[in-house]
């Protein structure tokens, strides 16, 4: 990312390639995998929120899933109660979760390490109970029903019949591209440099004139916006409810970010694809072994946990970190 | 004896010690002096194992200390009193002293009791304050405590890092005299790092002068003390 080339143009180029690849894949895959790819695109935005918050500014959060829920509920309520279009609802979801991130930032920006982790964990557990508290609004345990709706007619006339999963994918990818571009720009900007300085050595950064607390809060705001968008899209698959955003969702995002590589967009890409397709891959790879349902259910969790451990102990930079070292 | 041979200590781009060599004789006090930043503390930390030398050799009584953990080096008879009254404030005086003898308790239970008794004899003020928290002691008492902790391990080599820091001259004198007496009675070898070159050279047998990580003088203490050219060039007096 030298100052000679134009980083903005370069980022745009890669994102366009990404979009083309996904669209092409989307056209040829079966519906199940189209749906999976859509989930990858949705979760990628959430993983990027971890890349920004943890990888770039060094703040660990176990509550990104809760922020996804905020976005999900915001968009669902907008569509159901205000009758607005899906796209407006998504924009509102981003704003609402960014505001939640602001509140979270005020509370959390002073905390570090395990204190921050524990507090965000409690948040992730407390938020779903809010949904049960105000059942009439949030639909309690059952949740709210929303979906992507039908693909617009101009798209159908251009590409022919579009399946439901395919539409999910096509609707998500432009937003994913925006998220990728935004992340790339932040990472290469002065803001990104300040966040990295805070991550590496807070006191040194403060001595260099970086306003640590403001930047930390800002990171929460931005990453929460990302998480909210991710959660809103995730909920549009059919339901927004506490069971859709369990605590394991936060851990899933974190795992994806770590396995793929905490500090880079490539890492987020690799990680998102990994966490979505790994269970499918394990299923397929162990089919000849005819494992019992009991073992089959827990095998992805076991392998995921082991991968996380191995990564963190042997290769904390994740897959993209390792690739970069061997360049 | 303590043999330091061609020791280099570098951390990234900073080179703290550039090829240091000297020896310290058994039963004698060798003092390492020099201005701040000369690398004196680093040297002690290399010997006690808290830091690892980049290259070179460190031998005590013929055995190499390089690459060994501090815990094993202590068991070889080397005790290090780091600078700044290294005591653990929330523990009592008695606990701080006991701590130094923990590793010997299984093999030499009776001698440990003896050693603790001897240290209380050396520093009766500590026995008076046995059950007080170490954090409530005065600077001088804390230094005595730190040294006591080292002494109960019955070391054969004692590394003292700036024991006079922040202490009244009278207190420093008392401590140094105690150490000196120990050298004579038990053959304890002492490596004394000091900022206060005058005091150090008046009690030591041998002096090593460090400047910016290199040895610039290595001679018997009285000679170094008398060398006014050396003193004004490196020690500022």
């Amino acid at each position: 990312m030298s100052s000679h080339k134009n980083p903005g143009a370069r980022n745009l180029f890669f994102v366009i390639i990404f979009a083309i690849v996904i669209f092409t894949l989307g056209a040829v895959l079966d519906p199940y995998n189209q749906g999976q790819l859509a989930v990858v695109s949705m979760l990628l935005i959430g993983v990027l929120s971890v890349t920004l918050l943890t990888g770039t500014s060094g703040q660990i959060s176990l509550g990104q899933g809760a922020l996804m829920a905020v976005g999900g509920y915001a968009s669902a309520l907008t569509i159901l109660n205000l009758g607005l279009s899906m796209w407006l609802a998504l924009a509102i979801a981003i704003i609402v979760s960014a505001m939640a991130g602001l509140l979270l930032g005020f509370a959390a920006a002073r905390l570090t390490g395990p204190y921050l982790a524990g507090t965000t964990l409690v948040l992730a557990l407390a938020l779903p109970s809010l949904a049960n508290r105000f059942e009439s609004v949030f639909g309690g345990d059952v949740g709210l029903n929303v979906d992507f709706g039908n693909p617009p007619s101009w798209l159908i006339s251009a590409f022919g019949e579009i399946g439901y999963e395919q539409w999910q994918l096509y609707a998500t990818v432009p937003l994913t591209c925006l998220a990728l571009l935004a992340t790339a720009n932040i990472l290469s900007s002065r803001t990104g440099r300040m966040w990295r300085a805070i991550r590496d050595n807070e006191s040194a950064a403060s001595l260099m004139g970086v306003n640590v607390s403001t930047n930390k809060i800002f990171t929460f705001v931005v990453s929460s916006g990302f998480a909210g968008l991710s959660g809103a899209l995730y909920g549009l698959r059919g339901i927004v409810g506490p069971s859709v955003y369990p605590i394991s969702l936060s851990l899933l995002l974190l795992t994806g970010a770590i396995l793929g590589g905490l500090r880079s967009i490539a890492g987020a890409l690799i990680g998102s694809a990994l966490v979505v397709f790994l269970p499918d891959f394990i299923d397929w790879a162990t089919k000849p072994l005819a494992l019992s349902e009991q073992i089959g259910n827990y095998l992805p969790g076991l392998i995921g946990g082991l991968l996380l451990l191995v990564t963190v102990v042997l290769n904390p930079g994740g897959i993209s970190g390792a690739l970069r070292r061997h360049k | 004896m303590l043999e330091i041979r061609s020791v280099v200590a570098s951390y990234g781009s900073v080179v703290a010690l550039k090829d240091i060599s000297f020896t310290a004789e058994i039963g004698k006090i060798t003092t390492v002096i020099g201005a701040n930043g000369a690398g004196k503390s680093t040297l002690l930390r290399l010997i006690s194992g808290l830091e690892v030398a980049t290259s070179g050799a460190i031998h005590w009584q013929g055995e190499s200390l390089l690459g060994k953990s501090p815990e094993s080096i202590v068991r070889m008879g080397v005790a290090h009193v780091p600078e700044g009254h290294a005591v653990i404030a929330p523990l009592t005086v008695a606990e701080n002293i006991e701590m130094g003898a923990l590793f010997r308790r299984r093999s030499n239970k009776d001698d440990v009791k003896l050693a603790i008794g001897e240290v209380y004899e050396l520093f009766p003020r500590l026995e008076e304050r046995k059950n007080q928290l170490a954090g409530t002691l005065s600077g001088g008492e804390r230094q005595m405590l730190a040294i006591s902790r080292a002494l109960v391990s019955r070391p054969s080599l004692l590394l003292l890092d700036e024991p006079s820091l922040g202490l009244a001259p009278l207190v420093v004198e008392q401590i140094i005299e105690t150490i000196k007496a120990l050298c004579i009675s038990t053959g304890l070898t002492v490596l004394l790092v000091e900022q206060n070159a005058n005091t150090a050279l008046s009690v030591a047998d041998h002096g090593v002068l460090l400047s910016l990580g290199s040895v610039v003088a290595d001679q018997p203490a009285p000679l170094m003390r008398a060398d006014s050219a050396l003193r004004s060039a490196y020690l500022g007096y």
Partner: protein
Amino acid sequence: MNTLITTLFLGTTRGAVFALVALGLVLVWRGAGIVNFAQMGQAMFSTYVASTLIIKGYGYWFAFLIALVVGAILGAIVDLAVMRPLTRRSHAGILASESMRATVPVIASLGILGVLQSLAGMIWAAEERGFPTPVSDVAVKAFGKTAPFTKFDLFIIVVVALTLVVTTLFFKKTGMGLAMRATALNPEVARLSGIRISRVRTLSWAISGVASSLAGLLITPSANLSPNTLDLILIVGFTAAVVGGLDSLPGSVVGGFILGLLIAVINVYVSPDDVFLALLVFLLLVLILKPGGLFASKKVRNV
């Protein structure tokens, strides 16, 4: 009035268990500088082992003992296999950053939790099991009246009280206890005193494992045993430890009781759904107003 007394007793017995959990967390925090989010996963695992032994016909107390041993071994394994290699890594690459070095052990403990839960699910089929109590589980009757607690509640209190006494004696009166305190307070001086701090750390992990297994054995009868039952207990234990001050063993115990009472009151007088919300508010209040814990000394801790 009756409700209040029942609530207080409930709060005290639950609080006793939370105190154990908090104790375990603080032991590892002080001994190794890490908050072990996998702690109750370890407890779940050893409780499953005990449950399996009981189902196979072994006596309660034998299973109890084995569970404690398994807890100690699991704790030691976590330290030896994961935490030690982690701290030994050079400060290069991603670990050159301060905050990453603090974050990585947290993630490692989450990984361990995931592995333990998956293993438990695979081995013991995530169907919920009960877990027996060694003493009667019905309300105590004395002097013709029914007391608001059961023999098992008394059992819990007695066991926890005993544990606290033993722990205090261990730390104040034994050489190893002194070594552990020294290692936690000043590792460098401890090393220079000849204390093998890595062994001491592993022991902290093992003792913490025993404490958390004990907590699991005590609280499981009133919940059902499944790979996820004890997750939420960790959160309460963590909050208790923070409230009492992460650096303080006695503080964590007091924190446990405070939280036990708080949760009992919320459960009975407000609504069970609000427990986590109350936890969150309480945690945030403590972290904002008294970050070192309610019993923090003059030295304000950097959280």
